[in-house]
């Protein structure tokens, strides 16, 4: 019996881009490592280069060391060894100078609840050494871009968590720094706000801004980034474009299915299995008499699983074989 294919996820159309011309290196990280005084090793051997105008997403399991890496990059955490260069400036030797080129959104940072949205932006713009006039213009621009116009004169304390998160992103954008470092910028945002932030990031990139962001959302990494860095257990285990990462997987088709014994039972686990070819996946469907399944090209999520050994969302998938 030949099983009917119920659904096949649409194959993504990849952007076809010509081979990039050599570009200036915006960030160069070499052999970065951090060992705390109690001997705990946070990360080691991280080396990567980010080109000007590029978007690099940092993904990895919880506790993998994504934030540690970004804190080292933004000079907040002193590495034990290694070097970080931002547009040619040694960020370890001259952190203030390096930070002039950066807009940073930390994963967790407090805002000044009693300041109004406008005051918050204006005063922080001045602290980024913008003139009074520039600070006013930058404030208006960021407020409009982050869709906070109706909140301009409200105190930050009266805003929702998502709006406060947008303020933190806006503070990074002030003054249009050439490098944005965003640690999980959209965590906690509703889907509409998340898309709005993606739009903000894209517009920044269109004007030549380099972006390094960490994320828990695979879709975010796939949609926004030119290259993806996978960090696990404090080490950089993969770095490349999505296509480059996919070619590292020898099994490039994913079959998702429920057990043939009781496929309609909503409690039966969704299972996933990888195959080298579409035909092999079909053979498996026939052999196991599967009736509810889908076949799709492997995605970043699958690459992530293959590299880290952890499914991206444990609640939704159980991976076998």
């Amino acid at each position, binding site marked *: 019996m030949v099983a009917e294919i119920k659904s096949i996820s649409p194959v993504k159309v990849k952007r076809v881009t010509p081979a990039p011309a050599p570009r200036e290196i915006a960030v160069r990280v070499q052999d970065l490592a951090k060992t705390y*005084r109690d001997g705990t090793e946070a990360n080691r051997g991280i080396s990567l280069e980010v080109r000007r105008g590029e978007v690099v997403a940092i993904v990895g399991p919880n506790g993998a060391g994504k934030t540690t890496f970004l*804190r080292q990059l*933004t*000079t*907040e*955490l*002193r590495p034990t060894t290694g070097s970080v260069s931002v547009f040619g400036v040694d960020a370890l030797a001259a*952190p*203030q*100078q390096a*930070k*002039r080129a*950066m*807009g*940073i*959104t*930390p994963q*967790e*940072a*407090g*805002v*000044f*609840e*009693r*300041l109004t949205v406008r*005051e918050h932006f204006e*005063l*922080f713009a*001045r*602290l*980024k*050494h913008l003139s009074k006039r520039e600070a006013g213009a930058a404030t208006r621009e960021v407020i409009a871009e982050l869709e906070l116009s109706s909140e301009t004169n409200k105190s930050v304390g009266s805003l929702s968590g998502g709006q406060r998160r947008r303020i*933190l992103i806006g*503070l*990074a954008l002030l003054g249009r720094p050439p490098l944005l470092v965003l640690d999980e910028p959209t965590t906690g945002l509703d889907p509409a706000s998340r898309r709005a932030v993606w739009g903000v990031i894209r517009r920044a990139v269109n004007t030549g801004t380099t972006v390094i962001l960490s994320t828990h959302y695979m879709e975010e990494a796939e949609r926004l980034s030119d290259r993806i860095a996978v960090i696990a257990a404090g080490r950089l285990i993969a770095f490349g474009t999505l296509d480059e990462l996919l070619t590292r997987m020898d099994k490039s088709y994913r079959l998702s299915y429920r057990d043939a014994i009781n496929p309609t039972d909503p409690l039966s686990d969704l299972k996933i299995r990888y195959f080298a070819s579409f035909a092999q996946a079909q053979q498996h469907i026939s052999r196991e008499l599967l009736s509810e399944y889908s076949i799709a090209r492997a995605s970043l999520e699958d690459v992530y699983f293959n590299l880290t050994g952890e499914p991206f969302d444990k609640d939704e998938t159980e991976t076998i074989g």
Partner: protein
Amino acid sequence: MTRATDILCVFRIQFAGTRREVGPFLLAAFLFPAAMYLFANAVAGGDVAPPQSRLRFLAGSIVFSLSLTSISWLGYLLLENRFTGRLKLFATLPLAPSSYVFGVLLFALAQAAISTTTLLLLGRALGVQTGPNFLLLTIVILLTILCLCGLGVIVAARARSFSQGSLLTDTLGAGLIFLAPVYYEPVMMPRALRVFAELLPTTFAARAVQTTLAGGHAIGNDLLALGLTAVVTLALGFRLMEWRED
């Protein structure tokens, strides 16, 4: 110029951040010391207390007020910034840690200026005879604030939690007043404590404020001691108050 702008912006952020609480802040900076003045005066005999004692009580209350604003409340602000993640926000900027501290310190200075003026007016209303050289008094107050703020910065930078830091700044803010001969003569203290108290910045500050309020100028040694202590405590505070974590 950039540094001055940075300091002013941090001050404005702190001021705007507490503007709805500035009343209670100032009231507390005035109320405690004023009550202490009245209490000490009453214990010393009220209206029959010698003018010299009343001058000492007023000087003591001014130093008490400076101690509260510099150690307790400045420490509180720094601790609040650190443990609510606001310090992290400042750390993302090309801002020197010392500019941040001086910005908060400017806020403490503004508080101190208002509470000292109010206490001086209270003293005058209650008949305390003073004839201060205001320039000298300003210098004494400035050095006292710098010196005590350094202690607040050290505690705020090293505290492991907000509650631990708050307890320490409160204890230091009041303890440095009552362990020093601020409200009474040094001879009234136990001998061992007297030696220790001679090293406390509040001792130098109380002596200098009292002398200045009386119209005297012989405070060179106390100014020197306050200045040296300010250099040491602030240098240590700046060293500890780093954006970068080890």
